[in-house]
């Protein structure tokens, strides 16, 4: 176990969602941020099926792309993925291994760090290097405080809020490609039986540019139908607070906050929600927050660019009509 970072200077970015989207761009951007500082190589590691066009984007921005071809879905083959990543890390000896934000990434990071004798932390909003060690800025205490954490053992395995990082431009020279077929090295101890996707018409919440979100104040599942009509009018996606999800009014995949999704829309319209610090942790990177709430002292207004103090029942219907007519 090495005490400090720096037995290697290369940076690995592990991409398990097989698309060149804003999340992948941010992850590679964060990787470049570190590799520019360490002077090492930036190496993209892909898991799952990737289109050639997406791989090309990685090749333009990384010194090397290690394509890991898999027979099974990433979540159905965690042990094989871990074995593959351990082997790769032992070969490359990176200073840091970065992941994006997702439930699989959150699962893999500490387990990989343990197996490599490294250190691990997640939900990074910023990354720096100080005294040859990776430091991570993240929200703690349910968003009431911000901490800078130092990763004292190498490699530093970190999952990041990838959309919070600026994309990196192409390198002067394209990177090299190496393809490995990921073998089922050890029998999977857990067995994936069924995979279910909640119904969703639009883009993912994380990629959404407009979001309409409902809270506990809605009092039940029915008002969400009115919010959906409003969202459909402006092409927004739907989200909710933890309270609304826990009550069973809407699916958990709608949940935004500390333990839900971290979103980055241009507009986040919060309807009938107080804005607990745990919820705000999911929307710190929203460009504009607006709220409809009866209580002018609700914490949500402290984060808003604009808001209206009114009962949502008097607002949502007329607002939807007005937006419809303005679109014409």
């Amino acid at each position: 176990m090495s005490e400090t970072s720096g037995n290697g200077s290369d940076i690995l970015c592990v991409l398990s969602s097989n698309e060149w989207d804003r999340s992948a761009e941010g992850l590679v951007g964060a990787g470049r941020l570190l590799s520019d500082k360490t002077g090492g190589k930036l190496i993209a590691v892909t898991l799952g099926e990737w289109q050639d066009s997406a791989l090309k984007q990685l090749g333009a921005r990384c010194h090397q792309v290690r394509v890991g071809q898999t027979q099974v879905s990433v979540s159905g083959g965690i042990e094989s993925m871990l074995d593959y990543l351990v082997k790769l890390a032992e070969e490359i000896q990176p200073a840091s291994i970065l992941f994006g934000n997702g439930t699989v990434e959150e699962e893999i990071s500490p387990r990989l760090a343990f197996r490599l004798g490294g250190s691990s932390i997640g939900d990074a909003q910023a990354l720096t290097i100080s005294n040859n060690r990776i430091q991570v800025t993240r929200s703690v205490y349910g968003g009431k405080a911000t901490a800078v954490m130092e990763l004292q053992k190498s490699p530093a395995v970190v999952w990041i809020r990838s959309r919070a990082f600026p994309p990196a431009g192409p390198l002067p020279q394209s990177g090299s490609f190496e393809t490995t077929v990921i073998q089922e090295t050890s029998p999977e101890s857990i067995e994936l039986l069924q995979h279910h996707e909640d119904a969703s018409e639009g883009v993912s919440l994380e990629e959404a540019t407009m979001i309409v979100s409902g809270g506990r104040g809605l009092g039940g599942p029915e008002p969400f139908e009115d919010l959906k009509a409003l969202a459909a009018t402006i092409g927004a996606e739907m989200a909710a607070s933890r309270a609304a999800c826990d009550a069973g009014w809407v699916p958990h995949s709608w949940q935004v906050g500390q333990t839900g999704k971290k979103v980055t829309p241009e507009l986040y319209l919060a309807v009938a929600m107080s804005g607990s610090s745990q919820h705000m942790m999911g929307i710190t990177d929203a460009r504009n927050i607006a709220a409809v709430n009866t209580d002018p002292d609700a914490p949500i207004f402290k984060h808003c660019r604009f808001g209206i103090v009114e009962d949502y029942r008097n607002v949502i219907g007329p607002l939807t009509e007005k937006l419809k007519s303005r679109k014409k």
Partner: protein
Amino acid sequence: MKLLVCIKQILDPEIPVRDFSIDREKLEADSANANQVTNIFCENALETALQLRDSVGESSITVICFGRESAEDSLRKALAMKADEACLVMNDLNHTPDSATTAHVLASAIESLGSFDLIFTGRESGDWGNGQTGAYLAEELKVPYLPFVDDIKQTDKGFEVRRQTESGWERYGIPASSVVTITNSDHNLPRIPKTRDIMMSHRKTITRVSFEDLKIRKDELNPQSDSVRPVKLFVPEKESACEFIEGENLNAKIDQLADKIMEIRSTL
């Protein structure tokens, strides 16, 4: 069937922002102004375990906590919720250890308690929110691991569990002795203990385990030996310049709201 639930006591996350302050020396929240409570996801985990125990019969639940003296309250509450046994692993360190160290201590304590058919933790805590202890614990114990679980049934081969994902859910078969982390759902809201059970919980014995009992050298546990340590902790400054939409009447206000929304939409 023997179930084990790991719980954590934390500073009440529901305290208002104005009561929150930071101990600059220790680099953690000032604990003087707030109650200590059981982490909510740990209570979700206990509730899930209680429901599983009651559905299969002939089972027991041991609750374990690595914490300060005050954590006895959390263990008493777990007993009042009808857990069968409780164990406090005494933390008398001068700092708050990281997830890896916590899992290492817990793993040693769990091994000393015997073997379990399923080990539960909460998905993360409401203080540091690292969400790593369960994963490290599974690695320490060398057993299978599955996070973000919200439903568990016993099967012939072990357990069938439901895991929440970003976009829905997945069902898995997992063997006995696995570690699962529990997330919140509409059917694991923690029960409120009955007054009688609260009284009874005070008659039960809480097993106390020290570092010495576990042959862990306390002098080797310090911020420098942790894999992760805080180097800064501060309350972020927030700009609060909300424009409250005013107008002659509601209709005029909603008009302005619509304008502002369309203005943002037009930039996309």
